[in-house]
């Protein structure tokens, strides 16, 4: 089985490549890359050729933070619809959070997720195991069992690991399996009852506020724990980092040699708390962490550009339309992102020059592969041939009504953007959705 992706602009920061070249794939792995080499591949029945002229070819994109709701909340999303959404949005792999029902805190749930994903095979699914049993924040879950079954990270996301003791143990124990501990950083007490960023617009709307400090104190605490208990191999990752100060803390800790990484979401990079007000309290502006101030947003943009933010992840959080069609205070937190992230990044980050394309590929592919320790993130010889093909020129209007995801909850509906995914390949096989 051979594949030639011919004449595309291959952008692969893992080998410093940004050139129009052919990509040759054999038996699921990259077998060669270079100008004109596609023409030398012997014609045969098993040869598939994908014309990528005027298109961009990148290592498969990886969204390291999604909620696929299965098992337990299949009315919001299933592994099937979530992976279809991933493929439609240009992702070849996603890492799904453990806050399902039952919680992914045991081998059997992990195995179920992986088996279900394999049945559809539209994108790779990397389950993230719960730090604590039942996400209750008390006892460590069976990390070793889950690691053997295939989890790629640990997180109680949806909730923070509140207990300092438990975070300490997670940072210690995870080192046996080289798993990164992903924290949803929020001091629940400080933000109790809050539904939007605390600032001018929580004051105007009268909605209870979630102060930025609720994130910052948790990040600061965790970094202290990482320093003292993270040993030589403990790794800590801040999910959906949203404040200027948290970013500063992460940056400072890393400069002291701590093994800390972080991600930002497209919505925190592109929207602010004023959106809650101007949308007349649209529940599609409600998520955790909340849309922050303009000052925070600008700091995140700088972080994405200068490398202090490692990853862009969507925090894809589908909810049923009925659940969101309620007053702001009652709506669940979260928005979908799998089918908007790439276009938003291309149009609002790359096109205006906040970052270049190579940096975007780093954020959406290389870094998540590295942090999770999964294959991908590179198209060098011998790499797994998970590939995303995208168009920079194609215009698209985000239309939640046409999402593959069951979730329609996005504040970006109707946005006119330039740039979108054209195709994805898993181990050299074109994904059909």
């Amino acid at each position, binding site marked *: 089985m051979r594949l030639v992706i011919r004449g595309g602009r291959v952008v692969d920061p893992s080998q410093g490549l940004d050139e129009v070249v052919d990509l040759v794939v054999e038996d699921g792995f990259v077998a060669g890359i270079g100008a004109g080499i596609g023409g030398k591949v012997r014609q045969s029945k098993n040869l598939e050729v994908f014309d990528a002229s005027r298109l961009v070819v990148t290592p498969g994109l990886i969204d390291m933070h999604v909620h696929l709701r299965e098992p337990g909340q299949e009315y919001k999303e299933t592994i099937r619809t979530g992976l279809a959404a991933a493929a439609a949005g240009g992702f070849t792999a996603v890492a799904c959070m453990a806050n399902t029902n039952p919680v992914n805190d045991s081998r059997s749930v992990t195995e179920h997720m992986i088996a279900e994903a394999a049945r559809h095979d539209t994108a790779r699914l990397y389950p993230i195991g719960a730090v604590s049993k039942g996400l209750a924040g008390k006892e460590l879950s069976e990390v070793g069992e889950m690691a053997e079954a295939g989890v790629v990270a640990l997180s109680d996301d949806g909730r923070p690991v509140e207990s300092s003791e438990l975070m300490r143990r997670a940072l210690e124990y995870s080192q046996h399996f080289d798993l990164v501990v992903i924290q949803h950083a929020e001091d629940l007490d400080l933000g109790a009852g809050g539904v939007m960023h605390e600032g001018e617009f*929580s004051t*105007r*709307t009268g*909605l209870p506020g979630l102060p930025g400090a609720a994130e910052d104190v948790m990040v600061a605490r965790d970094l202290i724990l990482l320093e003292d208990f993270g040993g030589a191999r403990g790794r800590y990752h801040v999910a959906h980092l949203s404040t200027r100060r948290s970013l500063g803390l992460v940056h400072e800790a890393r400069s002291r040699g701590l093994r800390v990484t972080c991600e930002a979401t497209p919505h925190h990079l592109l929207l602010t708390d004023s959106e809650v007000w101007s949308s*007349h309290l649209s529940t599609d502006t409600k998520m955790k962490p909340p849309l922050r101030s303009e000052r925070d947003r600008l700091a995140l943009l700088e972080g994405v550009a200068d490398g202090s933010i490692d990853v862009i992840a969507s925090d894809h959080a589908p909810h049923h339309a009925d659940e969101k*069609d*309620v007053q*702001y*205070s*009652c709506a669940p937190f979260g928005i979908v992102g799998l089918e908007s992230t790439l276009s938003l990044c291309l149009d609002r980050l790359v096109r205006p020059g906040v970052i270049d394309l190579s940096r975007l590929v780093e954020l959406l592919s290389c870094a998540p592969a590295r942090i999770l320790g999964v294959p991908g993130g590179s198209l060098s010889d011998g790499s797994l041939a998970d590939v995303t093909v995208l168009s920079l020129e194609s215009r698209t209007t985000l239309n939640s009504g046409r999402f593959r995801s069951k979730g329609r909850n996005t504040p970006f509906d109707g946005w006119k953007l330039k740039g979108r995914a054209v195709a994805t390949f898993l181990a050299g096989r074109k994904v059909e959705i």
Partner: protein
Amino acid sequence: MSPIGWDRKDLLAIADLSPAEIQLVLDTADSFREIAERPIKKVPTLRGRTVVNLFFEPSTRTRSSFEIAEKRLSADSINFSSSSSGLVKGESLVDTARNLEAMAPDMIVIRHADPGVPRMLAERIAAAVINAGDGAHEHPTQALLDAYTIRAAKGRIEGLKVAIVGDIQHSRVVRSNIYLLTKMGASVTVAGPRTMMPAEIGKLGVRVEDNLEDAIRGADVVMMLRIQLERQSRSLFPSEREYFMLFGLTRERLKAAKRGAIILHPGPMNRGIEIASEVADGPYSVILDQVANGVAIRMAVLYLLSGVHREIA
């Protein structure tokens, strides 16, 4: 705009209104104020119109004020409250809206604990919606009646110094008042415990003071807010005694204000906590005028939103 200057379907927030619209409500209320002094306090203006009073939060004062206003205008009013109505039990707001819409009321007066609910309703139904208080967001008719009361006592709003003291954080009254008073050219100072001061309140165009005397110094108008005792569990202030010591308005403290400064309170009052009886019942208190004016303001709002003025035009 129609000749009379009002073409809104709903009254949801003072933040939406122009100074001219505010002026219009106040002037319209003038013509309704006099009805309260007649032996027969009823006019046929809204005969045949149905007004639904939908109160999801306990309210005696605002609801009875609206009811009296509706009755004096000869509207047919129906009351739903969350405790007595099967209509709202376990039902989503959207379904409540649909059910109401099916009954084809002309106007809906709504009070709800969650900000944004009146607008949500207004966007979904044809009836005119009047916000009678939504969480800590707005309480537009309260601000209008406060403005009416201030104008009646002082002859103007523009140029006045107004101090608002108390639990600023949880008060919808204060937000509506800040918008209204600043739009009409008054200057507003707020004061209260820092634990009850919302973030970046200064961006709403007010001055913030930490203590009562500084806030009311030279003020023409002093508005005291109700302390919600049930919020003490969140440890926002240590005790009622201490609250009164720091922020209670006494005759002695009132000396800092301008001579003849008037005292407002949206009620219900906690005597001896935010306000001393000697002030509440004193010569410059206009607290009961507020209540009386509330009926006239609500009549004006009901009248303007009913569209009757357009039919006449």
